[in-house]
Protein backbone atom coordinates (compact mmCIF):
# COMPACT_ATOMS: atom_id res chain seq x y z
CA UNK A 1 0.00 0.00 0.00
CA UNK A 2 2.72 2.44 0.90
CA UNK A 3 4.60 1.58 -2.22
CA UNK A 4 1.56 2.40 -4.32
CA UNK A 5 1.21 5.86 -2.80
CA UNK A 6 4.90 6.56 -3.26
CA UNK A 7 4.69 5.64 -6.88
CA UNK A 8 1.77 8.02 -7.34
CA UNK A 9 3.63 10.87 -5.72
CA UNK A 10 6.74 10.20 -7.75
CA UNK A 11 4.89 10.25 -11.04
CA UNK A 12 3.13 13.43 -10.02
CA UNK A 13 6.40 15.22 -9.30
CA UNK A 14 7.87 14.14 -12.60
CA UNK A 15 5.12 15.47 -14.86
CA UNK A 16 6.98 18.47 -16.28
CA UNK A 17 5.52 19.80 -19.52
CA UNK A 18 7.18 22.25 -21.86
CA UNK A 19 4.84 24.75 -23.53
CA UNK A 20 6.07 26.56 -26.64
CA UNK A 21 4.54 29.59 -28.38
CA UNK A 22 5.27 29.54 -32.10
CA UNK A 23 5.58 32.17 -34.82
CA UNK A 24 4.37 35.64 -33.90
CA UNK A 25 3.42 34.88 -30.26
CA UNK A 26 6.11 36.80 -28.42
CA UNK A 27 6.37 34.66 -25.33
CA UNK A 28 9.13 32.53 -23.85
CA UNK A 29 8.49 28.80 -23.38
CA UNK A 30 7.02 27.66 -20.05
CA UNK A 31 7.82 24.59 -17.95
CA UNK A 32 4.63 23.55 -16.16
CA UNK A 33 3.64 20.77 -13.80
CA UNK A 34 0.34 19.75 -15.34
CA UNK A 35 -1.32 16.46 -16.16
CA UNK A 36 -3.58 17.36 -19.06
CA UNK A 37 -4.60 20.10 -21.51
CA UNK A 38 -7.55 21.21 -19.38
CA UNK A 39 -5.11 22.27 -16.67
CA UNK A 40 -3.07 24.09 -19.27
CA UNK A 41 -6.16 25.95 -20.53
CA UNK A 42 -6.97 27.13 -17.01
CA UNK A 43 -3.43 28.40 -16.45
CA UNK A 44 -3.07 30.18 -19.81
CA UNK A 45 -6.52 31.80 -19.55
CA UNK A 46 -5.21 33.76 -16.57
CA UNK A 47 -2.62 35.42 -18.82
CA UNK A 48 -4.34 38.48 -20.35
CA UNK A 49 -1.70 38.86 -23.09
CA UNK A 50 -2.52 35.40 -24.40
CA UNK A 51 -6.30 35.71 -24.64
CA UNK A 52 -6.50 36.46 -28.37
CA UNK A 53 -3.89 33.84 -29.19
CA UNK A 54 -5.81 31.20 -27.28
CA UNK A 55 -8.87 31.92 -29.42
CA UNK A 56 -7.11 31.53 -32.78
CA UNK A 57 -4.28 29.08 -32.13
CA UNK A 58 -4.14 25.37 -32.81
CA UNK A 59 -2.57 23.02 -30.26
CA UNK A 60 -0.03 20.27 -30.86
CA UNK A 61 1.24 17.68 -28.38
CA UNK A 62 4.65 16.34 -29.31
CA UNK A 63 4.26 17.93 -32.74
CA UNK A 64 0.95 16.25 -33.51
CA UNK A 65 -2.12 18.51 -33.75
CA UNK A 66 -4.88 17.64 -31.29
CA UNK A 67 -8.60 18.24 -31.74
CA UNK A 68 -9.70 17.95 -28.11
CA UNK A 69 -8.54 18.91 -24.61
CA UNK A 70 -9.15 15.35 -23.40
CA UNK A 71 -5.50 14.54 -23.68
CA UNK A 72 -3.41 13.27 -20.78
CA UNK A 73 0.16 14.51 -20.65
CA UNK A 74 3.22 12.62 -19.46
CA UNK A 75 6.54 13.82 -18.23
CA UNK A 76 8.63 15.41 -20.97
CA UNK A 77 5.71 16.07 -23.32
CA UNK A 78 5.84 19.21 -25.42
CA UNK A 79 2.76 21.33 -26.09
CA UNK A 80 2.89 23.91 -28.92
CA UNK A 81 0.55 26.76 -29.75
CA UNK A 82 0.26 27.51 -33.48
CA UNK A 83 -1.32 30.88 -34.35
CA UNK A 84 -2.96 31.53 -37.79
CA UNK A 85 -0.67 30.58 -40.67
CA UNK A 86 0.10 32.06 -44.05
CA UNK A 87 2.78 30.30 -46.07
CA UNK A 88 3.54 30.98 -49.69
Amino acid sequence: MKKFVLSQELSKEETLIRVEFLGPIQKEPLELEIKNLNELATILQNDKELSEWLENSAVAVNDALVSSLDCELKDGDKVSLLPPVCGG
Partner: protein
Amino acid sequence: MLYLYDGSLNVPEILKEWYEQEATSNYGAYIPFVGTVRSEDGIEGLSFDIYEPILNSWFAAWQERAKAKGAVIKMAHSKGDVMLHESSYIAAVFSPKRRVALEFIDEFVEDFKASAPIWKYDLKNGKRVYALDRSTAISGSGLLGVRK
Protein backbone atom coordinates in the same frame (compact mmCIF):
# COMPACT_ATOMS: atom_id res chain seq x y z
CA MET B 1 11.35 16.38 -51.44
CA LEU B 2 10.87 19.34 -49.05
CA TYR B 3 13.53 22.00 -49.36
CA LEU B 4 13.85 25.05 -47.07
CA TYR B 5 16.11 27.93 -48.04
CA ASP B 6 17.33 31.01 -46.20
CA GLY B 7 15.97 33.96 -48.19
CA SER B 8 14.51 33.98 -51.69
CA LEU B 9 14.33 30.98 -54.02
CA ASN B 10 16.32 30.59 -57.23
CA VAL B 11 13.24 29.63 -59.22
CA PRO B 12 14.81 28.73 -62.60
CA GLU B 13 17.42 26.58 -60.86
CA ILE B 14 14.89 24.72 -58.68
CA LEU B 15 12.44 24.13 -61.55
CA LYS B 16 15.35 22.78 -63.61
CA GLU B 17 16.63 20.52 -60.82
CA TRP B 18 13.22 19.00 -60.20
CA TYR B 19 12.59 18.50 -63.92
CA GLU B 20 15.93 16.71 -64.27
CA GLN B 21 15.40 14.63 -61.12
CA GLU B 22 12.27 13.11 -62.72
CA ALA B 23 13.51 13.11 -66.32
CA THR B 24 13.22 9.33 -66.69
CA SER B 25 10.48 8.62 -64.12
CA ASN B 26 7.86 8.43 -66.89
CA TYR B 27 5.63 11.16 -65.50
CA GLY B 28 3.55 12.79 -68.23
CA ALA B 29 2.67 15.94 -66.30
CA TYR B 30 4.80 18.31 -64.20
CA ILE B 31 2.96 21.27 -62.66
CA PRO B 32 4.91 23.71 -60.51
CA PHE B 33 3.20 26.52 -58.62
CA VAL B 34 5.51 29.48 -58.01
CA GLY B 35 4.64 32.14 -55.42
CA THR B 36 6.24 35.56 -55.78
CA VAL B 37 6.15 38.57 -53.44
CA ARG B 38 3.82 41.23 -54.82
CA SER B 39 4.22 44.95 -54.33
CA GLU B 40 1.19 46.08 -52.32
CA ASP B 41 0.40 48.28 -49.31
CA GLY B 42 3.87 49.79 -49.48
CA ILE B 43 5.67 46.70 -48.20
CA GLU B 44 9.38 46.23 -48.82
CA GLY B 45 9.10 42.46 -48.73
CA LEU B 46 7.89 39.55 -46.62
CA SER B 47 9.50 37.47 -43.93
CA PHE B 48 8.71 33.90 -42.87
CA ASP B 49 8.96 31.76 -39.75
CA ILE B 50 8.62 28.00 -40.19
CA TYR B 51 8.02 25.34 -37.56
CA GLU B 52 9.78 22.45 -39.23
CA PRO B 53 8.70 19.40 -37.19
CA ILE B 54 5.00 19.88 -38.02
CA LEU B 55 5.74 21.08 -41.56
CA ASN B 56 7.64 17.83 -42.14
CA SER B 57 4.85 15.59 -40.89
CA TRP B 58 2.21 17.60 -42.78
CA PHE B 59 4.27 17.25 -45.95
CA ALA B 60 4.89 13.52 -45.38
CA ALA B 61 1.13 12.93 -45.14
CA TRP B 62 0.62 14.70 -48.49
CA GLN B 63 3.44 12.71 -50.06
CA GLU B 64 1.59 9.53 -49.03
CA ARG B 65 -1.62 10.80 -50.61
CA ALA B 66 0.28 11.58 -53.81
CA LYS B 67 1.98 8.19 -53.82
CA ALA B 68 -1.42 6.46 -53.60
CA LYS B 69 -2.26 8.12 -56.93
CA GLY B 70 1.10 7.37 -58.51
CA ALA B 71 2.23 10.98 -58.13
CA VAL B 72 5.08 12.82 -56.39
CA ILE B 73 5.09 16.24 -54.70
CA LYS B 74 8.06 18.54 -54.23
CA MET B 75 8.09 21.76 -52.29
CA ALA B 76 10.52 24.59 -51.60
CA HIS B 77 9.99 27.49 -49.19
CA SER B 78 11.96 30.45 -47.91
CA LYS B 79 12.86 31.18 -44.30
CA GLY B 80 13.51 34.78 -43.29
CA ASP B 81 13.31 37.76 -45.60
CA VAL B 82 12.18 37.75 -49.25
CA MET B 83 12.03 41.08 -51.03
CA LEU B 84 9.58 42.44 -53.65
CA HIS B 85 9.35 40.39 -56.89
CA GLU B 86 11.43 37.62 -55.38
CA SER B 87 9.86 34.17 -54.90
CA SER B 88 9.30 32.41 -51.58
CA TYR B 89 7.37 29.27 -52.52
CA ILE B 90 7.36 26.51 -55.10
CA ALA B 91 5.17 23.42 -54.98
CA ALA B 92 5.16 20.89 -57.80
CA VAL B 93 3.29 17.73 -58.69
CA PHE B 94 4.60 15.06 -61.04
CA SER B 95 2.04 12.52 -62.21
CA PRO B 96 1.53 10.05 -65.04
CA LYS B 97 -1.77 11.71 -65.94
CA ARG B 98 -2.77 15.34 -66.26
CA ARG B 99 -6.09 15.20 -64.34
CA VAL B 100 -4.40 13.84 -61.22
CA ALA B 101 -1.71 16.52 -61.45
CA LEU B 102 -4.16 19.38 -62.04
CA GLU B 103 -6.38 18.36 -59.14
CA PHE B 104 -3.49 17.61 -56.80
CA ILE B 105 -1.67 20.89 -57.24
CA ASP B 106 -4.90 22.79 -56.46
CA GLU B 107 -5.74 20.75 -53.35
CA PHE B 108 -2.15 20.78 -52.14
CA VAL B 109 -1.66 24.53 -52.50
CA GLU B 110 -5.00 25.27 -50.78
CA ASP B 111 -4.23 22.97 -47.86
CA PHE B 112 -0.73 24.43 -47.68
CA LYS B 113 -2.28 27.88 -47.26
CA ALA B 114 -4.69 26.63 -44.59
CA SER B 115 -2.47 24.26 -42.62
CA ALA B 116 1.28 24.51 -43.16
CA PRO B 117 2.91 25.93 -40.00
CA ILE B 118 4.47 28.98 -41.62
CA TRP B 119 3.99 32.55 -40.42
CA LYS B 120 4.18 35.57 -42.69
CA TYR B 121 5.31 39.07 -41.75
CA ASP B 122 5.22 42.25 -43.81
CA LEU B 123 8.50 44.14 -43.96
CA LYS B 124 7.44 47.75 -43.63
CA ASN B 125 9.57 50.72 -42.61
CA GLY B 126 12.24 48.22 -41.60
CA LYS B 127 9.87 46.45 -39.19
CA ARG B 128 8.49 42.90 -39.22
CA VAL B 129 4.69 43.03 -38.84
CA TYR B 130 2.71 39.78 -38.48
CA ALA B 131 0.21 39.49 -41.39
CA LEU B 132 -2.69 38.42 -39.18
CA ASP B 133 -5.40 39.67 -41.54
CA ARG B 134 -4.14 37.40 -44.38
CA SER B 135 -3.55 34.42 -42.11
CA THR B 136 -5.78 31.41 -41.54
CA ALA B 137 -6.44 29.73 -38.19
CA ILE B 138 -5.53 26.06 -38.50
CA SER B 139 -8.57 23.78 -38.40
CA GLY B 140 -9.51 23.07 -34.77
CA SER B 141 -7.94 26.26 -33.42
CA GLY B 142 -9.24 27.87 -30.24
CA LEU B 143 -9.27 24.76 -28.00
CA LEU B 144 -7.36 26.41 -25.19
CA GLY B 145 -9.57 29.50 -25.21
CA VAL B 146 -12.78 27.67 -24.31
CA ARG B 147 -13.84 28.57 -20.76
CA LYS B 148 -15.56 25.97 -18.61
